């Protein structure tokens, strides 16, 4: 069995599973945020009316809640949702509620690793499609709708069909000017936005072994854009060190068997990878940065669960150090812990000296919610994950998706720029 099959076999109490099997799996962790949370509460209300007992959750210690999409609250409705969420967590005894303005908080998918909330081998589900991110820690992580999250909250279990696995093998390290973001955009360009539909996308090979945990998180994060059920990397010592340094204990690793089977294996040579952008209006619409259209950009956005981890900010700082931005540049660290490190290590000063602005952790403009949404005809280069029409604001705005290196280099020139081409 491969790693995903082994995790699902263990979670369903079976000695073995094969793709296509339908299993009833025990869930180890579940997450909801300020959009899915109020949706789940609504489902609870409906169930209550039907006579279902919703007085108790299956295990409040395994549930955690993030405030990320609409914080700081841009309007009354959002503020009320936050209050609703707070009442819910209080009533059900959920202690892991990361509140905006009270110490550590941030984007749910960032907290999952920054706070070591999910461990290798876990079955982890969340009320958000980018829950896939956390598979980079060697867990089975996938997103669910509100009704399914409500079900898990009450029962601690959920049905899965065991997915087929596509294996993406990266031979050798990525060059310095290429990031994990470029690699995953390249993959999505190759297999299309439905190429991974209801499949596992697993990443391995020497290039992945060399990669930091944060880079692996970027890969798994955007498996969602290929339609994948989950993204996963076999955990190693780096994952153990990463989680241990964040307080995790009792980590045990699940890895695939030597004779693990994959539906298809794709191979990539690290040395051949190039900086990539995804042009409007789909993550699969890719181009090598040096061949990208010469558009006048209005904004560079460095934020989100995809592109505002500490390593992403470091990459942006490397470019922006001693340079000035030519277009509006917004940098929103993905969590308070990352924000603090960026402050302590001088990154924020580099950003501010370059003329960029630094905002609080939030999903913000990535989902077009608030904090710098785009106007009609504005063009943005962004380290986020989706560029559908209207995703970041007006339906006639445009978003190019890129790595933090490319977004920062483009901030300096005002055009889509390969970091190697900066003076």
């Amino acid at each position, binding site marked *: 069995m491969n790693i995903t099959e082994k995790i699902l076999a263990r979670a369903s109490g079976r*000695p073995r599973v094969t793709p296509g099997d339908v299993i009833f799996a025990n869930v180890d962790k579940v997450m909801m945020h300020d959009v899915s949370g109020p949706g789940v509460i*609504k489902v609870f209300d*409906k169930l209550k009316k039907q006579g*279902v007992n919703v007085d108790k959750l299956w295990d409040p210690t395994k549930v955690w809640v993030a405030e990320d999409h609409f914080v700081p609250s841009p309007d009354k*409705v959002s503020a009320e949702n936050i209050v609703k969420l707070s009442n819910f967590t209080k009533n059900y005894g959920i202690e892991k509620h990361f509140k905006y303005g009270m110490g550590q908080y941030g984007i749910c998918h960032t907290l999952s690793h920054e706070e070591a909330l999910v461990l290798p081998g876990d079955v982890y589900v969340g009320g958000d499609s980018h829950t896939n991110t956390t598979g980079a820690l060697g867990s089975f992580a996938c997103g669910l709708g509100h*009704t*399914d999250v409500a079900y898990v909250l009450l029962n601690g279990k959920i049905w899965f069909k065991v997915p087929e696995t596509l294996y993406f093998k990266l031979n050798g390290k990525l060059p310095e000017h290429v990031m994990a973001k470029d690699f995953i955009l390249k993959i999505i360009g190759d297999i299309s936005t439905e190429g991974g*539909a209801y499949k596992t996308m697993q990443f391995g090979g020497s290039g992945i072994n060399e990669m930091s945990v944060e880079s692996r998180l970027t890969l798994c994060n955007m498996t969602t854009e290929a339609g994948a059920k989950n993204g996963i990397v076999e955990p190693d010592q780096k994952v153990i060190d990463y989680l241990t340094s964040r307080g995790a204990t009792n980590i045990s690793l699940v890895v695939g068997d030597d004779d693990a089977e994959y539906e298809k294996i794709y191979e990539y040579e690290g040395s051949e990878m190039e900086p990539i952008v995804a042009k409007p209006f*789909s993550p699969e619409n890719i181009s090598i940065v040096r061949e990208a259209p010469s558009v006048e950009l209005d904004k560079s956005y460095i934020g989100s669960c995809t592109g505002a981890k500490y390593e992403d900010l470091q990459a942006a700082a490397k470019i922006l150090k001693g340079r000035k931005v030519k277009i509006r540049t917004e940098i929103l660290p993905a969590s308070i812990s990352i924000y603090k490190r960026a402050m302590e290590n001088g990154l924020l000063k580099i950003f501010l000296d370059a003329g960029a602005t630094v905002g609080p952790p939030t999903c913000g403009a990535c989902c077009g919610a608030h904090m710098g949404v785009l106007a009609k005809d504005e063009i943005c280069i962004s380290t986020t994950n989706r560029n559908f029409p209207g995703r970041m604001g007006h*339906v006639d705005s445009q978003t190019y998706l890129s790595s933090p290196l490319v977004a920062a280099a483009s901030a300096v020139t005002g055009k889509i720029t390969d970091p190697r081409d900066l003076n």
Partner: protein
Amino acid sequence: MQSFKKIKTIITPLDKVNVDTDQIVPKQFLKLVQKSGFGKFLFYNWRYDDQEHLKSDFILNDPTYKNSKILVAGDNFGCGSSREHAVWALQDYGFSVIIAPSFADIFYSNCFKNGILPIMLDDKIVEKLQQETGEIEVDLENQIIKTISEKISFDIDSHKKKILLEGLDDISQTLLYEKEISEFEKHSKIPSVL
């Protein structure tokens, strides 16, 4: 949840692929959590102009399709975020069947939680159905779509079919078997090391 058995209406052809949930319900409406009333936000940016007037060139605004309950769309329908609001909007607007060559996983699953029947059919058949101007009948019990000239069968997981036919959502349905589940759990041996 309302049950679904059979329906007969004209179809609304939506000749677009990769219709994502941002197009189905834009983000500004996500903070609203009532399940009803989302219909007016459905395909918001396609249906309304900047002044919130209906755009005459969008298919849903054509009165011909006013009573249609069957949406026929392109590949990968419902991709993007996991927002269940997308399904709420389609349902509230009046659609109860969505036919496409493929669906995004979370969206597909959300449909069954809200009494919508998503049907996957071969590209060619979907293309043909999009041209259909007369009423078509979708019969879930017999897994048949009847047009004026032909009968098209479709596949559906038997469990999901039952959910829709009986109007039971997963939670209520599973809770019917609470005793059996607990019994099974007692005998389940989860290997400690794998």
